[in-house]
């Protein structure tokens, strides 16, 4: 397994943050009652682990001050399985909201953190998730300033659901909007598509590959900041193609900006194993969920430079220009297939289901 810096940090954190000794192994309904058991759970190490001046007040909410215009986003995480190659639900809960803020052109500052735990979750699992939350939030430079914990009966949840909301300060150079997108703009994708979704699917389906597929979940904020520092208003649009995948984001963009989009299948970066897994399971990688990548629509004049900057970073080393914005076929995305044929790339209808043959 290839070890990333982030994984090294996680391992180190686990060593530095050993689970405290507790007189309970599993979380029960009582831990969400708000009474003594809730306090026991939170005081057992949750507060200690995530501590900062805001959380330390133990208040119902946080009072915050920001200098610049604010971006605000929320996301809920309900993934199965909660632990997967390359991360766990805790990593996703932080990176997901941090990345949503980054896509607004904002520098993430504060997060709220809410757990809905199904009784029976082991404290060991919960601790591992908390350590991931600590590691990823520290790496992203965001503070968890308020939170909530509820416990539901067995069968009423799926181990653990997490919601995070976040606020960030909009980068002074950012002007990210579908309406900034103009004809001839270039469409850049920051890395290999479908990696996260197929890592999850391979665990669910019990598929084994020569090298394990790992989620690419990561904090996209630093690279987005760098791009905004360097290219400012020439970055017209940013979006992380999570649920619904690349095809869905491009369709949403085409409809928002009223322009057409041309992309080329052969230019889309895709890991060979991920491609193989998609073929086996009958899924189109363009509709598979992503975590660690984003789509940038940029002024054509700076596209090559943006690509160079991206490729110098670890998160953007596989970045590629995949297409162009056009005045032709407004509101539609046209894909040139690997053999040169053209077709409509449409939004997904319902859930992507494996085909019979």
């Amino acid at each position: 397994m290839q070890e990333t810096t982030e994984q090294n940090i996680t391992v180190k954190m686990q060593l530095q943050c050993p689970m405290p000794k507790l007189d309970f192994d599993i979380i029960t309904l009582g831990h969400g009652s708000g009474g003594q058991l809730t306090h026991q759970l939170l005081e057992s190490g949750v507060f200690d682990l995530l501590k900062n001046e805001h959380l330390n007040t133990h208040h119902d909410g946080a009072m915050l001050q920001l200098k610049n215009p604010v971006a605000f986003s929320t996301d809920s995480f309900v993934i199965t399985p909660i632990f997967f190659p390359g991360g766990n639900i805790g990593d996703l809960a932080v990176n997901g909201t941090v990345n949503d803020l980054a896509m607004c052109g904002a520098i993430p500052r504060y997060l709220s953190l809410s757990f809905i735990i199904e009784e029976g979750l082991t404290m060991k699992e919960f601790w591992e998730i908390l350590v991931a939350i600590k590691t990823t939030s520290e790496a992203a430079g965001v503070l968890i300033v308020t939170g909530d914990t509820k416990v539901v009966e067995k069968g009423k949840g799926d181990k653990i659901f997490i919601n995070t909301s976040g606020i960030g300060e909009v980068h002074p150079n950012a002007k990210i909007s579908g309406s900034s997108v103009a004809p001839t703009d270039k469409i850049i994708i920051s890395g290999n598509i479908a990696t996260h979704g197929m890592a999850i699917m391979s665990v669910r389906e019990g598929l084994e590959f020569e090298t394990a597929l790992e989620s690419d979940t990561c904090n996209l904020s630093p690279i987005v900041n760098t791009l905004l520092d360097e290219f400012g208003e020439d970055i017209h649009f940013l979006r992380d193609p999570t649920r619904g995948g690349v095809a869905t984001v491009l369709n949403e963009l085409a409809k928002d900006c009223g322009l057409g989009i041309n992309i080329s299948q052969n230019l889309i970066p895709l890991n060979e194993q991920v491609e193989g897994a998609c073929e086996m399971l009958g899924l189109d990688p363009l509709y598979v969920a992503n975590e660690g990548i984003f789509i940038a629509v940029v002024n054509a004049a700076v596209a090559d430079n943006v690509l160079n900057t991206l490729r110098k970073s670890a998160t953007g080393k596989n970045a590629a220009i995949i297409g162009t914005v056009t005045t032709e076929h407004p509101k539609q995305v046209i894909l040139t297939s690997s053999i040169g044929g053209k077709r409509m790339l449409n939004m997904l209808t319902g859930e992507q289901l494996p085909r019979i043959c």
Partner: protein
Amino acid sequence: MKHLTEYRDPILAGQYLEEIKKTVTRPWTIMEICGGQTHSLVKYGLLQMLPKQITMVHGPGCPVCVTPTHLIDRAIYLAANPKVIMCSFGDMLRVPGSEKSLLQAKAEGADVRILYSPLDAVTLAKNNPDKEVIFFAVGFETTAPANALSVIQAHQLGLKNYSIIASHVLVPPAMDALLADTETVVQAFLAAGHVCTIMGNGEYYPIVEKYKVPIVVTGFEPIDLLQGILMAVRQLENNEAKMENQYARVVRENGNLNAQQAILEIFEISDRMWRGMDVIPQSGLEVKEKYAAFDATKKFNVPLKETKENETCIAGAIMKGLKKPLDCPNFGTTCKPSHPLGAPMVSSEGSCATYYHFYSAIKETETAEA
């Protein structure tokens, strides 16, 4: 990716297209029988790349689409029983019966699971002795061996809680029925490569002989399809009618004998209702009486309701190749994958759904701007 990229090679595709253009002198109508082939033709933009003289019409080859409504209703009825775990292949779940789909039944609390193999359903039955595990066994001759094997395995394990709803259709009788239709426009067939992988090519010689129509057993990748079309066009231009095998890297003349044996052990051939088409004689597989204990339609008493297809739907004409999805006034307006009126729109392999997925934006934009 090895063994796939070479069949998606743009230079080779260009050479085949050039050769087809050089060969064709008159208009020809060719039907690809399988929904997987339709999917590839549209997904890779091949239909627009072919010379104008060649019209590809799309056959009834989506087993999910042609599964009769009453069988889906039965599956939904059984799935509602809290003792039942209903399993099937992914795209079967979205297909609406007369009132709802299995996905909707799942949302209402039924235990409905997507599996990649019926053998997983046998394992499920073994691990859940207090549950009845039912596999909704859909497909052409391609999925029949694995479905048969699941019954053989359950029988060997002595499982009393495993059964299947068999919804198997056979391709050659449908091709025969299409050609027997006096209105038929089909001048050549691309036969379904995966079906022949199991069954071999033997069943096609009598059809070629009887109707004097070229049949080319063809694969599913763009280069396969272009090569298959070229082989069909060459025959048509030379006024020949032969059985040819484009998919020889996979299809053996006699097919897979072990797989055929598994099918023969469990199933027998019967008349079959095809959704959107009608009953086609000797075109389906039913569980043999000997294995009736594994036949969910016999094991459980399910009340049968009469079901009717939408009268404005032109599914029959589309599946016979007489009409194209875009010819239908319901297409993309009152009929969509989220609300299908007929068989070819119900599964992603159906020709209407394939067109909707890859073309609908044109129509939607036109509608929005009108």
